[in-house]
């Protein structure tokens, strides 16, 4: 690859400063930074909510909150973590890195990009405002239905449900706008010579994610709109008394909800191989196989949704179809695992923080994936479903597989973004604390689920006490160790050892040919890829 970089002559001269810079910016790096900052803030907000939950579950009996508030916290925790922490983090990376990786000067649709971001803060406010309103005696708090909005409970619910519906609408619009932008950028703005099969893996992961978002977000928007009209305008989509069916909502919701899992994970599966090849000092193994697997997983994710509600009752052929199709996802996923491990195999590995997070990520996400394979079995699912086993399973996929992956990405690219090296010792401390306390939080939950503890209960029988106590203590360690992460990021942004352009010894790709930090406007002259 050969590239040409541009001089810094225009830096900080052609845009407003102060708050107006951020409000009006159309620069992909600024917008990426805003996405990542927003995501970090919401990660802490969603995290403190769950610490409230774990504090309540520390021992049997109600100590801190009433059951209704408990239900509000679990639902808003999930919505915030999924829509306001994980998804914006992935979009933030996309904004920052996709133009740099494909040699484009910016995203294809910069103004739309700006709008896509600025829809997020209002939706975060919509999600959390009902808590504040309740303090002033308006309404009865946020939605208390869990993040899944299942009717008829969500039809019974208070104004919190309406707030959440509109928040989901805004978040959905934001995601679709972001996706359109990424697709247009990737289709039109790749550097000359960069064919699709030479595109960086992160770009591939995001390309498939973007298509999934465009395919499924409108279904979610439709479903919650039907809920809204059921609540306020006398329709009966989900009410048997008027010819509707509550289970139809579950079909619509999970038609979005299952691809959503992969929407959260595909961008991570994109940059994980890049981190692996950097720190193994050899090119990633099976590029084509990985690309085809990503496409296969994306396609299959749309046709397996009903495994989320096997116990709702379905005809036997439907149960069998959803069971076998779910199991089939293990095939392309196994190819990915094989390629990741083969990339490390006979490499020359070093274990800086991004690599630590990546290796930990592979192991923990593996546990999440394998327990998912077991969950696909309909008969055993009758036991696992809605028990703590499922809670543990999806935290292995979404916390380990999602958030720890994002953290690997943060440590990997932070020196490039800020021009400073982060504190390696603190980074490693953060990794070990996170990995250990994460396991101590969620391994007990597997056993709680097997022993028969249902999820979403504010209080429990005494037979579940010990494991809940372990889980709660570990959850607080997990939560507090994220403060190290925040401190490390802030101090890296403010200063530190200068990072080189390549940052990592084994880093390859267009983004590493630019200076650290890259100029405000990069690639004004197009690089070419051989």
């Amino acid at each position: 690859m050969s590239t040409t970089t541009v001089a810094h002559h225009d830096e900080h001269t052609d845009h407003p400063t102060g708050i107006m810079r951020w409000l009006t910016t159309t620069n992909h790096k600024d917008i990426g930074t805003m996405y990542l900052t927003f995501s970090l803030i919401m990660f802490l907000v969603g995290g403190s909510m769950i610490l409230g939950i774990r504090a309540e579950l520390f021992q049997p009996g109600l100590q801190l909150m009433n059951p209704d508030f408990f239900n509000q916290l679990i639902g808003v925790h999930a919505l915030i973590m999924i829509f306001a922490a994980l998804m914006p983090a992935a979009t933030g990376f996309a904004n920052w890195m996709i133009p740099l990786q494909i040699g484009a000067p910016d995203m294809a649709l910069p103004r739309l990009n700006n709008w896509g971001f600025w829809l997020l803060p209002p939706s975060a406010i919509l999600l959390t405002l009902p808590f504040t309103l309740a303090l002033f005696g308006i309404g009865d708090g946020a939605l208390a239905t869990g993040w899944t909005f299942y009717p008829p409970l969500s039809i019974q619910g208070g104004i919190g449900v309406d707030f959440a519906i509109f928040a989901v609408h805004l978040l959905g619009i934001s995601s679709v706008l972001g996706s359109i932008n990424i697709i247009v950028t990737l289709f039109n703005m790749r550097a000359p010579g960069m064919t699709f099969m030479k595109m960086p893996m992160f770009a591939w992961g995001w390309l498939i994610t973007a298509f999934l978002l465009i395919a499924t977000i409108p279904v979610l928007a439709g479903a919650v709109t039907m809920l809204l009209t059921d609540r306020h305008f006398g329709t009966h989509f989900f009410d048997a008394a008027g010819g509707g069916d509550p289970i139809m909502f579950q079909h619509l919701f999970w038609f979005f909800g299952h691809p959503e899992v992969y929407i959260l994970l595909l961008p991570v599966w994109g940059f994980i191989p890049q981190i692996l090849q950097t720190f193994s000092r050899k090119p990633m193994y099976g590029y084509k196989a990985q690309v085809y697997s990503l496409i296969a997983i994306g396609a299959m994710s749309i046709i397996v949704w009903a495994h989320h509600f096997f116990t709702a009752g379905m005809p036997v052929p439907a149960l069998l179809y959803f069971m076998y199709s779910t199991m089939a996802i293990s095939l392309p996923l196994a190819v990915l695992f094989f390629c990741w491990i083969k990339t490390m195999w006979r490499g020359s590995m070093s274990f800086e923080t991004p690599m630590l997070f990546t290796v930990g990520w592979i192991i923990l996400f593996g546990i999440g994936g394998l327990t998912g394979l077991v969950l696909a079995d309909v008969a055993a699912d009758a036991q696992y479903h809605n028990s703590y086993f499922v809670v543990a399973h999806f935290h292995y996929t979404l916390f380990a597989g999602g958030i720890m992956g994002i953290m690997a990405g943060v440590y990997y690219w932070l020196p490039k973004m800020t021009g400073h090296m982060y504190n390696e010792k603190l980074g490693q401390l953060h990794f070990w604390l996170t990995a250990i306390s994460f396991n101590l939080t969620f391994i007990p939950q597997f056993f709680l689920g097997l022993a028969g503890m249902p999820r979403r209960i504010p209080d429990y029988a005494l037979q579940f006490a010990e494991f809940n106590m372990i889980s709660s203590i570990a959850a607080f360690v997990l939560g507090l160790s994220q403060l190290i992460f925040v401190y490390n990021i802030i101090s890296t942004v403010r200063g530190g050892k200068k990072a080189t352009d390549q940052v990592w010894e084994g880093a390859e790709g267009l983004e590493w040919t630019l200076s650290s930090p890259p100029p405000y406007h990069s690639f004004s002259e197009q690089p070419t890829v051989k």
Partner: protein
Amino acid sequence: MLKQAMKKIGFGLFLLLTAPLALAEYRWNFPEPVTPMALDTLHVHNKFMLIVAVIFVVVLAIMIYSLIKHRKSVGHQAVADKAPSTATEIFWTLIPFVILLVIDFVIMGIPAYHSVVMMEDTRNESDMVLKVTGSQWRWQYEYMGNTDKGSQDGLVDAKGIKFVSNLSTPQNQVDGTVPPVDTPDSPYLLDVDNRLVLPVGAKVRILMTSTDVLHNWWVPQFGSSRLAVPGFIRETWVQVDKAGTYRGQCKELCGKGHGYMPVVVDALPKEEYAAWVALKKNEINEQAAGADKEWSKDELMEQGKVVYEKNCAVCHMASGAGLPPAFPALTGSKITTSPIFDADGKYLPDSHMDRVLNGVRVMPAWKALLNDTEIAAVITYERNALGNSVGDVVQPSQVKAARQ
């Protein structure tokens, strides 16, 4: 307040100290299965867990080997992967693919298929039918009678028995004012006033429905779990092969009382079951007689208090203060203090009787859940206690008439 907090902390310390002891006998797997389905589920689960554990350990071992051997700090030089020949590539792609296919669809797929078919076969060979209705936040059980097979096998027919099963843990433990009390007979949050009673060895076809939101009837030792959907009938079945008491919980978030609607089942040998059925039928006859007699105000107030605390206090609070705005106060409210009947003795729309019988929004329609005497008693109680003193009395016969 401080004393309470001290008690709670003391209780927590007690748990912490006894934790290792309790963990020794902790369940690390599904609880002991007592139905054919739970047994099957346990086998499938154990087998699958073993398979995934083996996969995990093998892959992890390979990875750890690589992590130790192929690191820069021990001087390992990266060896580039050579592009393999097409034949080798196809071979190495097919091998893992086939292994996984076999694991997924043969080793795991075939037993899973049989389990599914068994789980969904609710009708063949069934002995009796039971209807389970979920309501916020209690279960209602109705015995629909024997099948032909059940009658031929000499199973006593329980048709007509119908009752509501409420959490029996005292309210002051549930709301956290006193620490939980746990006994083997009545575990905290896992005991009810009226247990479901099933005959050992009989295949019971269960029809599930709900009166309000989604619920899920789940007893871990039975291996069956099915959603209760309002307006629809879903089916499952159990055949309890071992006498004993089995406990479970609602498994679908159903509002603020979700954690407080346990399922408790007594599985009795056939003779004991027959005795229970006789007792229960006798009770029903007595209640029917009770509905026709004239009750005194004191009698009604006494029973009304019991009914209120069991069914109504969850939302309207023991004091009648409610939890506004979701759950209005009964003390001094329009409904509990305005007249019930018009001049012809018919109950008025939006009157106390209308609200209790038919419900509105979150308020359940109690006519399906309580008998005439209980409804008469609880209305009388609400009008003459909880800070109200209207002074009138509602007789069970009036409730009976109002149901028409």
